[in-house]
């Protein structure tokens, strides 16, 4: 969109009258002996000239508004994109372009036979069209897996076989970030095709940054980019191309009760004495759900079922929130119930990552949701017979469905670099403490309600809240209304929340008015450390 003279038919009458009055005054002063206000000059020449002048004035006003930060901030959607780009470029800020999502697709076939997937055949899912990154061939034998585009067929155990392909969205945009488990359908199914689904949450898809988004990060970009304070630290992180998609940022340090890493000084100073800051970053609205292949060891038998245990090293899923479930190897963790986690013990690993630096972490709770956390997970497999197995040594392959936010490790690595990290403090990067939300409400009146659009709108509004102490029901109502017919009404909003504190304690919230986060700084759970997370599938809409 470029700034141009507006259509003459779109001008306001007062604009034309004002322009006419100006021209008349100026022309009369210029040539008093000519009657510009009436007759030929007034009716035939002056009025058209006034229309032109009003149009030009509108153009000038658009340019002035486009170049005025105050004007743009008052109406970001109405500002010209090109003019905003020029303005923010003065502050070394560049609009993020749209990007296409990428992900891995699990293809299920019903025969153990070599199967080909053409690169030019699209896969449809979530209303989007994805293309394979290569022409893939699923091989029967591992000996035949030679090239990067060869895949090995794996038996699921129910007579079907699976292999994976990598795909890229044909259109840039955040809508391409399909949820883990989302179904995909090929335009031309390969031989023996049964079904296909997203192995994990697709990522990388982003919409072109709107003027409002761009201006929202301008304030942090205007700040000096350094580690001296919250604003400059946020600006430093946002300035990096890889972290330009930062959605929410918070930091707790000197004087903040949430900062618990004041080692050895607690007896003297009941609050953080400086030198350490915990940085909370959120780069995606929804967490990634990743399927991790793990090897579990039988550690016991309880009520006839084996208790299995596996470890998640710090690099397996950096900063992960929790393990949602464990399923048998080869199974789709999103299609089967699986086994619930019975024990989740966190630990920490400060092994040098090559930067020569590690933050001052003394216990596991301090490291939770950071890249330094590790974990030991136990679950009970009620399907595998334990006869003939040995406790302590028998092992078995499983798949763990892990939930985490992206880029926690990447930001930590960046801030660990010798050229970036502060001389007088350490920065520990964490994923925010999650408050998983569900909501239900009733929609009355209106026809043709698009429930999925309502769910998406509500989830998006909640996920983009950032760090704040409460989630009001009115926000849910307002967000729902943006996707509803004008005559529809929203009522009976019910909200629930579940906070998973770093120490593993779950706190349950419920309200029909507003969810209020606990104020428990000693547990590192406050509005400065915790974010609301809402999956669209957890938005329940009742049509009345």
């Amino acid at each position, binding site marked *: 969109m470029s700034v141009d003279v507006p259509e003459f038919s779109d001008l306001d009458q007062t604009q034309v009258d004002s322009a006419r009055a100006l021209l008349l005054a100026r022309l009369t002063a210029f040539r008093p002996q000519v009657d510009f206000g009436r007759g030929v000059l*007034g009716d035939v020449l002056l009025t058209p000239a006034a229309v032109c002048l009003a149009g030009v004035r509108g153009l000038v006003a658009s340019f002035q508004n486009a170049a005025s930060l105050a004007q743009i901030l008052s109406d970001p959607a109405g500002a010209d994109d090109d003019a905003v780009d020029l303005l923010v470029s003065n502050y070394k800020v560049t609009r993020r372009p749209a990007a296409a999502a990428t992900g891995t697709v699990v293809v299920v076939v019903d025969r153990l036979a070599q199967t080909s997937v053409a690169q030019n055949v699209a896969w449809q899912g979530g209303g989007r069209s994805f293309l394979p990154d290569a022409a893939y061939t699923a091989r029967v034998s591992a000996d035949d897996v030679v090239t990067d585009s060869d895949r090995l067929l794996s038996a699921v155990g129910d007579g079907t076989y699976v292999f994976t392909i990598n795909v890229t969205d044909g259109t840039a945009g955040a809508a391409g970030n399909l949820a883990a488990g989302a179904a995909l359908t090929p335009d031309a199914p390969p031989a023996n095709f049964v079904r296909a689904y997203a192995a994990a949450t697709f990522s990388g898809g982003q919409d072109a940054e709107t003027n409002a988004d761009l201006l929202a990060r301008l304030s942090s970009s205007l700040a000096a980019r350094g580690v001296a304070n919250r604003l400059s630290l946020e600006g430093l992180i946002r300035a990096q191309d890889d972290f330009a998609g930062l959605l929410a940022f918070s930091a707790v340090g000197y004087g903040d009760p949430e900062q618990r890493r004041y080692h050895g000084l607690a007896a003297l100073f009941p609050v953080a004495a400086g030198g350490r800051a915990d940085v909370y970053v959120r780069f995606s609205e929804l967490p990634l759900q990743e399927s991790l292949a793990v090897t579990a060891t039988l550690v016991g038998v309880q009520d006839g079922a084996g208790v299995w245990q596996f470890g998640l090293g710090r690099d397996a899923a950096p900063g992960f929130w929790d393990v949602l479930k464990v399923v048998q190897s080869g199974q789709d963790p999103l299609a089967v119930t699986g086994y619930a986690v019975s024990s989740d013990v966190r630990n920490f690993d400060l092994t040098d990552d090559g930067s020569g630096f590690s933050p001052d972490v003394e216990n596991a709770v301090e490291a939770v949701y950071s890249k330094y956390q590790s974990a030991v997970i136990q679950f009970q497999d009620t399907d595998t017979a334990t006869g003939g197995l040995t406790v302590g040594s028998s092992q078995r392959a499983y798949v763990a469905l892990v939930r985490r936010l992206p880029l926690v490790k990447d930001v930590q690595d960046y801030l660990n670099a010798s050229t970036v990290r502060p001389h007088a403090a350490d920065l520990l990067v964490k994923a925010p403490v999650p408050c998983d939300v569900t909501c239900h409400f009733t929609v009355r009146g209106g026809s043709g309600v698009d429930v999925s659009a309502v769910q998406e709108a509500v989830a998006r509004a909640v996920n983009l809240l950032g760090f704040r102490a409460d989630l009001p029901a009115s926000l849910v109502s307002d967000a729902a209304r943006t996707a509803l017919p004008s005559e529809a009404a929203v009522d009976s909003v019910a909200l629930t929340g579940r906070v998973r504190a770093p120490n593993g304690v779950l706190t349950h919230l419920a309200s029909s008015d507003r969810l209020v986060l606990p104020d428990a700084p000693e547990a590192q759970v406050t509005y400065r450390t915790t974010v609301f997370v809402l999956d669209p599938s957890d938005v329940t809409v009742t049509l009345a």
Partner: protein
Amino acid sequence: MAQDLAAYEGRSVDLALLQGLTGAASGPPLALDLAADGGSGEAVAGVWKFAQRWLLRFQTELGSKRYSPDDGCAFFTRSRSGLFANDADVAGAFGLSAIDVARQLRAEETDDDPDDERYGSVTLQGTLLTPGVLRLDLKFVSRAGDSAELLLPVPVLV
């Protein structure tokens, strides 16, 4: 009648739009021409300036000007619609439109305007209705009492 600007020193003038102003009621029909063969760019003042104002507004169809929707009258709209079957039709339409035009002209005049340029009266002295063309014999009288007469051709749908 249109003359050079020097003839109107001390007066405010308008650009002469109407070609064929002879001052005679039996003269050739007027033509609307800002740039005419044989001469243009002349100025008018006095009763002819008033007459020109009236004619411009009379020949503007009401609502046809995007940002001056109240300018004009319905006379030419009716003439193009084939509603003039006889002289009585013409006289009736003229009477109604003349009221509208008079109101508009008076609204844009001030006490500082010379009386010979201000609205006094406009009279339809006669009509000649022929297939395709209607001729109006008009007499203009300014507030100062100066008069001018002319024939105005009006296209009509027969």
